[in-house]
C-alpha cells in the first residue's frame, strides 16, 4: 500500500522553511486574488510576507466559511477516559515520567461522566486517553464504546495510533471520527520529544491517517502541535497531508486543529511562540486553501481570543472542557493534561455564540446514519461489507 510517507520523504524541512520565508508580498497578492489556491499559495499566505494582509485574509475566510457552513457553530466536549501512558512526551502532562496519580475510568465512572455531559447538553463527545496498550487498548475501547455510544449522537476518539483492523472495528462500533495529530513533522525533533514508548516511531504515526482512510472512517482530524518547531513549516506539512488524503480517501471528511502548547504541571515552556495574529493568519490560510475542511478551536485559547476568532473560519468549538479523567463528575480535582484557558460553562458559550449571530449546533449527526445493516433482506450495490 502506498502511503503519505512516500510523498513526505520527497520534502526537506529546511527547504520548505526557506521557501516559505522567501515568499514576497507579490506572492501573497496573487494568492489572495486566485480562486483555486495551490499549496504554493498557501505557503505565501502563512509566510511573514502576508502579515500586512491579515484583514483581507480574515474577510475572505469569513465569507467562504459562511457560504459553506452557514451561521452555525458546532459544540463538543472531550471526555477523558484515562491518563495512563507509557510514552514520554516532553510537552505533555500525562507523560510516563511525570509523577502524577494515574486513573482509568471504570464503567460506573464512565456513566457518571456521560450523565454530567448530557446534562450540559452535549451530543458530540470526544473520547481521550493516553497510550497504555495493556490496560487501555482495544478491549477497553470496545467496552467504553458500548457504554457511551447509545448516549450521544456523535462519538469521536483521540487515542494512540492503532492498526487498520482496529479502526475498522471501532468504526463499526460507532466511532465517527478519529483525531491523530502528528505533533511535529520535524523528524529529528519528533525523536527528541518522544524518546520512549511506542510513540517514538515517527513513520507509524505519520501513516496513521492512511490506515484510517483504508478503514473507511467517516472523519479524521489532523494537526501539529504549535510550540515545538517553526509553525509555518509544520502547517505546510499539515496542508500537504490534507491534500494527499483528500485525493486518496475521497469519502472521508477532514478537520484540522492548531493546539498551541499550554503550560502543565512539571512541563517545559514552548520553544516556539506563536502570537495571536499569527494564529489568526494560520486559521484564515487554512480556510483560503480549503473551503470544506472543518477547523476546530479548543478551550486552550483565551476567552477573548475565542470570542473574536469565532467568525473568522472556525466551525467547531469545545466548551466547558475538563482534561482530567473524571473531571466532570467523578473527581473534579485531579490533575489535568493541560491548563484550560476558557473556563466558561457550555451554556455560557452557547449564549455567546448566539450573541455573535450564530446558531450553536449541539447535534449534527445521528447513529442512524452509520447503521451497517438494515432490517430488510435487500441485495444492494453499496453493500461491500
Amino acid at each position, binding site marked *: 500500500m502506498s502511503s503519505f510517507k512516500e510523498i513526505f520523504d520527497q520534502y526537506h524541512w529546511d527547504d520548505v522553511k526557506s521557501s516559505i520565508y522567501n515568499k514576497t508580498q507579490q506572492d501573497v497578492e496573487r494568492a489572495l486574488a486566485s480562486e483555486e489556491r495551490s499549496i504554493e499559495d498557501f505557503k505565501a499566505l502563512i509566510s511573514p510576507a502576508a502579515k500586512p494582509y491579515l484583514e483581507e485574509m480574515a474577510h475572505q475566510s469569513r465569507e467562504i466559511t459562511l*457560504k459553506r457552513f452557514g451561521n452555525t457553530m458546532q459544540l463538543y466536549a472531550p471526555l477523558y477516559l484515562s491518563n495512563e501512558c507509557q510514552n514520554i512526551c516532553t510537552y505533555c502532562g500525562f507523560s510516563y515520567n511525570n509523577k502524577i496519580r494515574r486513573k482509568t475510568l471504570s464503567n460506573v465512572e464512565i456513566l457518571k461522566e456521560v450523565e454530567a455531559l448530557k446534562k450540559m447538553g452535549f451530543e458530540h463527545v470526544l473520547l481521550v486517553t493516553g497510550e497504555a496498550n495493556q490496560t487501555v487498548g482495544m478491549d477497553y475501547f470496545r467496552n467504553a464504546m458500548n457504554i457511551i455510544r447509545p448516549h450521544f*449522537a456523535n462519538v469521536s476518539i483521540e487515542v494512540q495510533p492503532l492498526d487498520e483492523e482496529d479502526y475498522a472495528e471501532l468504526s463499526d462500533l460507532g466511532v465517527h471520527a478519529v483525531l491523530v495529530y502528528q505533533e511535529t513533522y520535524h523528524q529529528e525533533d519528533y525523536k527528541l520529544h518522544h524518546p520512549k514508548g511506542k510513540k517514538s516511531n515517527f513513520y507509524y504515526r505519520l501513516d496513521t491517517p492512511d490506515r484510517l482512510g483504508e478503514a473507511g472512517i467517516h472523519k479524521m482530524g489532523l494537526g501539529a502541535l504549535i510550540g515545538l518547531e517553526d509553525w509555518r513549516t509544520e502547517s505546510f506539512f499539515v496542508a500537504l497531508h490534507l491534500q494527499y488524503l483528500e485525493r486518496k480517501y475521497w*469519502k472521508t471528511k477532514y478537520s484540522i486543529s492548531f493546539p498551541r502548547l499550554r503550560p502543565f504541571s512539571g512541563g517545559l515552556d514552548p520553544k516556539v511562540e506563536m502570537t495571536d495574529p499569527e494564529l489568526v493568519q494560520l486559521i484564515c490560510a487554512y480556510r483560503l486553501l480549503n473551503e*470544506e475542511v472543518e477547523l476546530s478551536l479548543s478551550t486552550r485559547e483565551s476567552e477573548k481570543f475565542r470570542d473574536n476568532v469565532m467568525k473568522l473560519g472556525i466551525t467547531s468549538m469545545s466548551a466547558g472542557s475538563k482534561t482530567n479523567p473524571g473531571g466532570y463528575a467523578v473527581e473534579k480535582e485531579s490533575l489535568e493534561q493541560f491548563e484550560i484557558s476558557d473556563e466558561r460553562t457550555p451554556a455560557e458559550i452557547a449564549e455567546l455564540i448566539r450573541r455573535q449571530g450564530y446558531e450553536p449546533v449541539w447535534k449534527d449527526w*445521528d447513529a442512524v*446514519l452509520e447503521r451497517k445493516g438494515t432490517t430488510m433482506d435487500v441485495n*444492494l450495490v*453499496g453493500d461491500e461489507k
Partner: protein
Amino acid sequence: MEKLHIADKTFSSRLFTGTGKFSSSPLMGEAIKASGSELVTVALKRVNLDKREDDLLETLKSNNIHLLPNTSGVRNAREAIFAAQLAREALETNWIKLEIHPDPKYLMPDPVETLEATRELTKMGFVVLPYIHADPVLCKRLEEVGSAAVMPLGSPIGSNKGLKTIDFLEIIIEQSNVPVVVDAGIGAPSDAAKAMEIGADAVLVNTAIAVSDSPVEMGIAFKMAVEAGRMAYEAKLAKPGKLASASSPLTAFLHE
C-alpha cells in the same frame, strides 16, 4: 398559476426551502414563512429523532408546511434506506429526500446507490425525491423505478454558482414524466427565475436565503422570482431569435 402535484400532495408554492445554515431557529421560521414555501427539507442528523423537544421541528410545526426529511450524511443505499425508515417513524411522513453523497468535499450525489435506494424505498411505500446530477438518462431510470420527482443540481450544493448545468436541465425537463425540481447551487433569485422559465416544476433554495444578511427579505425575493419565472413559462415565453431578417434572403430565388 398552475398548482404543483407531487405524489399525494398539491402545492401552491413552487419554492422549496432548506433549514440549514440559519443563525437561529426563529429567524429560519420567519424566512420560510416569508418565502411562502410549503415543502421544507430537514436534515435527519440535525434533529432529535427520539421525540424529545426539538427546537428546529417545533419552529416548523406551523400551518401548511410539509416536512421533507433528507438523508444527508449517508454514503450508500443501505444506510439511506435505514435512515429513511427512521425518518418515517420519527417524523411521521413517508416522503424522503434521498441524498447519497459519499464525497464530503463537493457533496456529489452517487448515481448508482441513488438508483438502488430509490428502487427499494419506492417498493416500501416511500415518496422518493432523489438529489442527483443533471443526468438525463439517470432521470429516466429513476422514473422507471418509481421516483416521485427528480432533483437535479444546478451546480454543487452551497456553491451559489447558479445553473451551470442548464443544457442538461433542459433535456431533463423536456423528457420528464415526473416533476423536475432544480436543487442546489441556486445563488440568486434570477437563477431561480431562470430555472422556472425553462420549465422546472420547482426549485429548492437554502444557502442563498440562510446566509444572506436578511433571510426574510431574501425569502420574499425568491418567492417573487419563482412566481415570475413560472408565470412567464406558463405565458409561453418568446424564444430568443434574431430580430433583423437577413438582407439577402437565401431562398428569394424561389419567388423570382
